[in-house]
């Protein structure tokens, strides 16, 4: 028999109802099922079942986040090198970035799991795989210089208030990772505002760098010129070699993630396409408006698409099935309105440039309403059977 399996079988008793560590049973269970996919026999029909389970489901989301994560590490190192006037080769940039990013990820997972286990133990339900994704999404939305205690506080808020008080995975209204991020944003605006610190080697005296969305044009120049001035040309924004939150800078990596999620049908493409359509159409409209010269209204769809966290948000956050609508027309509208609101927020409120986070949270709240309307329409089309 497999030696690891043996260890689990040996320990099983201690974590059972009567064992010494009965309270930690969910932790034991989570660890064991991580190593050995459980396959209980089907008791009732259908007697055969699909191989897809929630562990696999969430693993695919994690997989799709890998390009974003690795690029985020590299970019963090690259930007800090740039700020210090050193040019780093690929591996030293990657490693120095990883040195900054990994602690944030680890803190997010460690603190988040603490809460998960606590609630699972109290409620006696298994630890949900959903946290694997939340714990990774949250750090990717943070600037690399975030103090670790803020990350810890943020993820605690996200897990406890964003999810557990609603009853755990599957019952939350808001996306937990975004709830966490919004909490940090509103509580510690200085560390999270448009100007982020670029992680230095000794992060103490890092150097501030504006993110693209914080750029405004002075009278006379156009916004695109001002962006280019500061190094935010379209190709830079697309490939992501610019300062910003860890995971959001590279449009390309987000698109790779979106492709993985769409091809495996884990994320619903309707949300992503609807979101892009909403953003592009609204950006076109504001672009055509007269008298907006030099503001984000004048940026045009491509800049709106590539700058800031829109692609990250629409790919990984908005597609969270639990907090998004469950009906297909609902998903289109949901996505579209997120795109729409993102542009509107960016244009209307230059002091608070990152609109996508609020747009998604706002639409999360309206998702049940969208579903309700769609269902009403569907019911009216069905031939009644009562």
């Amino acid at each position: 028999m497999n030696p690891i399996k043996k260890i689990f079988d040996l320990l099983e008793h201690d974590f059972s109802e009567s064992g010494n560590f009965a309270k930690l049973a969910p932790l034991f269970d989570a660890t064991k099922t991580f190593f050995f996919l459980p396959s209980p026999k089907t008791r009732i029909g259908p007697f055969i079942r699909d191989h897809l389970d929630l562990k696999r489901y969430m693993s695919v989301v994690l997989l799709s986040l890998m390009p974003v994560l690795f690029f985020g590490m590299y970019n963090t190192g690259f930007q800090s090198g740039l700020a210090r006037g050193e040019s780093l080769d690929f591996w030293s940039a990657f490693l120095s970035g990883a040195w900054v990013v990994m602690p944030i990820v680890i803190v997010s997972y460690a603190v988040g799991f603490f809460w998960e286990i606590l609630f699972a133990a109290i409620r006696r339900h298994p630890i949900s795989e959903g946290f694997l994704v939340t714990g990774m999404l949250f750090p990717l939305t943070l600037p690399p210089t975030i103090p670790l205690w803020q990350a810890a506080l943020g993820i605690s808020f996200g897990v406890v208030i964003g999810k557990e008080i609603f009853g755990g995975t599957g019952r939350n209204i808001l996306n937990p990772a975004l709830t966490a991020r919004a909490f940090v944003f509103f509580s510690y605006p200085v560390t999270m505002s448009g100007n982020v610190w670029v992680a230095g080697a000794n992060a103490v005296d890092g150097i501030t760098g504006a993110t693209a969305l914080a750029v405004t044009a002075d009278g006379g120049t156009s916004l695109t010129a001002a962006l280019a001035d500061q190094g935010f040309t379209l190709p830079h924004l697309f490939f992501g070699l610019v300062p910003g939150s860890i995971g959001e800078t590279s449009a390309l990596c987000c698109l790779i993630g979106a492709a993985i999620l769409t091809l495996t049908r884990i994320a619903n493409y309707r949300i992503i396409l609807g979101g892009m359509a909403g953003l592009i159409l609204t950006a076109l409209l504001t672009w055509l408006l007269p008298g907006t010269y030099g503001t984000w209204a004048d940026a045009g769809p491509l800049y709106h698409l590539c700058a800031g966290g829109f692609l990250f948000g629409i790919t990984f956050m908005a597609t969270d099935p639990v907090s998004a609508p469950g009906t297909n027309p609902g998903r289109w509208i949901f996505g579209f309105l997120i795109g729409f609101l993102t542009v509107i927020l960016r244009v209307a409120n230059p002091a608070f440039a990152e609109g996508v986070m609020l747009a998604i949270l706002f639409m999360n709240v309206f998702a049940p309403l969208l579903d309700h309307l769609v269902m009403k329409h569907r019911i009216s089309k069905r031939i009644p059977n009562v």
Partner: protein
Amino acid sequence: MEKIAPSKGFKLKLAGMPDTSVIRLSRPATVGVSALDIPHIRPKLLVKEKQAVKTGTPLFHDKRDPDIRYVSPGTGTVKQIRFGPRRRLVEVVIALDGMDDFVEFDPVSPADLNSLSDPDLTDRLKQGGMWQTLRQLPSRDTADSRSTPPLIIVCLNGNDLFSPHPGRVLEDKIKPFEFGLAILQRFSDRVIVAARKSSMDRLEPVRHRITHQVADIYPAWDPGAILYHIKTKAEENQAWYIHVEGLIRMARFLETGRYPVETMVTVTKGHDKKPHMITRLGAPVRLLAGNFSPESVITTGQLNGRKVDPDTHLGFFETTLNILPDAPDDEMFGFLRPGLNKPTVSKTFLSCLVNKEVQLDGTLHGEERACINCGYCETICPVDLMPSFIMKALHGDDIEEALQLGLLDCCRCGLCSFTCPSKIELTQILSLGMDTHHKDKQG
């Protein structure tokens, strides 16, 4: 001939499609009449153990309508009356004698059919143990003889993916089939005959009788799914249906005045291609199944059947057995493997790139979790339901909302449970909801 081509349903290719050759099994030592596959029935026993019975002697009836009888498919003595938990009748087992002795009725030839009045015809079918082959949607209860059905659906294919080929069932039985259709016409002006596309090859002799051809996607040939796709108004929901085996037996009963005891069954076993088998109604499961490992699960349909105990007999309506191999051990890092040999309707395993026949085992492949609203159940439901929404309505005890969302259109095909990554027993939850509603309505 109309074509029904629903886009949703089960598209994996499961291994085990039976061979279309036919063998005749030897006479079994026992036969049984199972009460487990008869929905909604409240059986009342009419015989005792050791009592001698003829072929056609009533064994139990339905308390809700004592005229509806379930009769013995053989001559001999009642060997055992088996009860399950809460004294629920499981089956009545008859030890067969060497010769058949029939309960005799006056034969009715096709030409005489019209001399029989409607109540006489109904009564004759009830007495003979044939009426219950007619069933009524949406509850799938025995057809209510006091009502007039808006239409009757004749299903040439059985519930299961591997039910007997109708071409084989109908072979040499074209006359009884025609007579059966004439009988149904006495109950409704609108009789629909539906067949799977892949069955059409052997159905040439009855082709002119087939009104609807359905796509080869499970469960497109289920009466509930057919009705969903053809109905135009609410009244049609109360349609009746009958499977071709039942129809032929009904016709033969009238024509001969004797209870017909032969049936055709298929057995599905991994990559074996077993032939179709002719045997007696209620034959012992062991006799049909042949050799199987003690760990395997035997069902009367991988997706929508029930689990059968190998020591019992095949049910009243059942024509197929599926033997699922025993499950392998828990797999190390199962969720990380690329999964070339892990069939799935999702696109999360490499297996979705290869299109070959697969054999699934009887395990969940995961553990139950909360619904994550992923929508997989909706994308597969053949009657366009949103099972997760209905489940939530039922959990909130809101039967009204569940009904509005189309609960009664559910044909219990099992696909939503099959596909749910959170391993929620959706089909069971919906079935219970439907059954509770049906019971409440009956009072």
